[in-house]
Structure formats: C-alpha cells, structure tokens
C-alpha cells in the first residue's frame, strides 16, 4: 500500500501531465485548421494540373518519343521508395502506419527481385526504417526547420527525385504518405509518381498548343511531380495534426481516469488511517 504522501504526489504529477496533453491537443487543433486550409487552397492548382496533363498525356502518351517521365524508361528494376513522415512524435500511430505500409511494399518488391532505394522525408520515418533497411538509404530530406510546408519544399524534394531519375538511378518512384480523411482517420497511401499516372478526366475540348504538345508536356511533367509531392506534403501535415489531436485527446482522457482512480485510492487510505487511529484511541480508553 503506497503511503498517503506518495499518492498525493502521484496525483499532482498526473494532473500536470493532463494539463500538458490538453494544451498539446489544443495546439494541434489550431494547427490542423491551418493545415486543412492550406490543403484546400492548394487543391484548384493540383486539380487543373492533373486534368491538363491527363488530357495531354492521352494525346501524346502513346506516340514515339513520349517523355520518359510519363512512360518510364522501360524498366522497373530499381524502385525508389519515398517515405514521408513527420518530424515530431506524440502523434499516435501516424508514423507507424506509413512505415508499416512502406515496409510491406519493400518486402513484396524484394521478393520480386527488385533493387530498393529509400529516400526519407521527416525524421521519424528515417529512424523507424533505419532499423531494417538502413543499407538501402540513398538520402534524407530534413524539414525540421520548416514551420509551414511551402511549395518551395516540395520543389526541392521533386528536384532531388527528378535528378535521380534523369541520372538513371531509379526506374520507378513511389511516395508513401497519409491521406487526410478526418481527425480520426488517416489513410496510408502509396502513390506512384514516376512513371506518372494521372486520373483526371480529359475535358473533351480541342486545344491549340503553343508550343507543341510534346514540348508543353515535357515542361509540365516535372511541375506535375512537384505538385504531387506538394499535395502529399500538405495531406501529411494535416494528417499529422489530426493524429496528434486524437492521440492527445485520448491521453487527456486517460489521465482524467487515472486521477479519478488515484483519488479514490487516496481517500480510501486516508479513511483507513483515520479508522485505525480511532480504533487505537478507543481500545486504549477501554484498557484503562
């Protein structure tokens, strides 16, 4: 039986923990709002880009000499896996779900005899992937210093990926990130960006192209890759805050439960001590 003093200290400490998790939840809620706004604001660009590239790809894609970003370089031997995670922990299963999915994919690809290369974005994913696949790492992109992800960050990542592709260091590039569905549901997603896969509906309008279709497509595809990376970054940011919010909500509730339990225990032992003292006094009086 712990003493009254230790129980009291314990309750005070759990109360402090609850205060912290509560504050973290509120901060996450505010950040989530901002992240969601950013994701919504970025949507028109991504949608337009997808639609235009899709309709261009439909008309140029099957021709001889189509851009390699679109049709690939004819091989799928070297697979670049881009694992996008958060820079900070305490966000529930957010990082683990991405890493688990990436790991499963790596195992499947290895079983098929492919060469794996791993590029990580975000510290947490790097730490988790390093344990099993450290030898496949080809790079890491650090966003610790970045307060709000901007298009510039996406451009840097895209530039890195494109450079690797043009230098024939990889054949297929797949992004792993969490798609934001709601505060309690984030869906781990694998998106293959090279060779590009676009699922926008062609508009049906017949356009003139200036310069010609091929040149436009060659110009747009790298941008489209950057846009996809940007979308993934934003979705990830929103998911991270959502996951953190629900994790901290749970933690706050658990701390509350624990305080209740400890308080009951504290009161019981206090009552027991009083009863014990009374008995001692009474039996002492009787003995006289």
């Amino acid at each position, binding site marked *: 039986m712990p003493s009254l003093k230790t129980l009291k200290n314990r309750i005070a400490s759990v109360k402090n923990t609850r205060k912290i998790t509560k504050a973290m939840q509120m901060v996450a809620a505010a950040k989530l709002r901002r992240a969601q706004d950013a994701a919504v604001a970025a949507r028109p660009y991504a949608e337009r880009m997808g639609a235009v590239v899709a309709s261009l790809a439909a008309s140029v894609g099957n021709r001889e000499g189509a851009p390699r970003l679109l049709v690939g370089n004819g091989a799928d031997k070297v697979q670049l896996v881009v694992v996008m995670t958060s820079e900070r922990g305490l966000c529930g299963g957010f990082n683990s779900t991405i890493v688990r999915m990436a790991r499963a994919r790596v195992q499947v690809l290895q079983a098929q005899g492919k060469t794996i290369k791993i590029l990580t974005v975000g510290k947490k994913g790097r730490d988790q992937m390093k344990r099993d696949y450290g030898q496949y790492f080809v790079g890491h992109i650090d966003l610790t210093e970045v307060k709000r992800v901007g298009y510039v960050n996406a451009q840097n990542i895209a530039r890195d990926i494109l450079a690797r592709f*043009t230098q024939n260091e990889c054949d297929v590039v797949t992004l792993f990130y969490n798609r934001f569905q709601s505060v309690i549901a984030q869906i781990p997603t694998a998106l293959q960006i090279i060779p590009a896969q676009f699922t926008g509906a062609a508009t049906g309008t*017949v356009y003139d192209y200036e310069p010609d279709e091929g040149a436009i497509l060659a110009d747009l595809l790298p941008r489209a890759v950057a846009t996809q990376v940007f979308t993934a970054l934003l979705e990830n940011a929103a998911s991270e805050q959502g996951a953190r919010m629900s994790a901290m909500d749970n933690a706050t509730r658990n701390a509350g439960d624990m305080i209740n339990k400890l308080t009951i225990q504290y009161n019981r032992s206090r009552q027991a001590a009083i009863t014990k003292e009374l008995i001692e006094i009474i039996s002492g009086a009787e003995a006289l």
Partner: protein
Amino acid sequence: MAGTLQFDLVSPERRLASLAATEVQIPGAEGDMGVMEGHAPVITTLRPGILRATSAEGVKSYVVSGGFAEITGANISVLAEQAVPLEEMTPAIMDQMVADATLAAAVNPDRDATDKVVADLLAMRAAAGQ
C-alpha cells in the same frame, strides 16, 4: 462593350485571383498574347513576365515566374509556379526569383532553356521598374 471571360490565377499554394475580365494579357512562351472573350481554345506555357488582367475595376498586374495557361472561349486559367501582385513586388522577392532560376540553371542539362528563363527574369525586372 465586349463580353467578359472568367479569369483564374492560381499558384500551388492558393488562388490569387478569380474575376470576370474583359481582357487578359499573358506572357506566353512564344510571345505575349491578349485574350478576350471567344478566344480559340489554347494551352500555352508561360515565360517569366507580367500578366495584366483588365476588368471593370481596372487593370491588375501580376508578376509570374512561369507556368501555363489554359484558355477556352469563356475561361482563362493561369497556373503559375509563383505569382505576386505587381504592387507587392519587392526587390527582395525579385532577387530571390533570379537566384532560384540561376540555381536551377546550374544543374539543368538544357542550358539554352534555363538561360532564357534567367534572361526573361532580368527583362521582367526591368519592366517592373526595379
């Protein structure tokens, strides 16, 4: 009075403008072009330059760093990599744009194209009066 066309200017991060314009001048890759209602459908890439949208409220100018425009008879959507309203343009942003382009030019194998982008940017700086 000519009819209007719906003008949208979006950057990857946000929608900068959405208004009914009577005429939009864009810096196309193969020369500037003015777009009015009923223009033939065109998709064109943009070079760095200044975009002017004329509407009932007057003329709005934006500095764009490249991207592309999709034109149909009733709509023009400009997807700009980076776009800044001309009045908010500062030498610092301009220098940053030039620095970015120079950096990209250094690693790009297609020297002609990237050098042209830098040259276009410098011309744009002159046009913006900075």
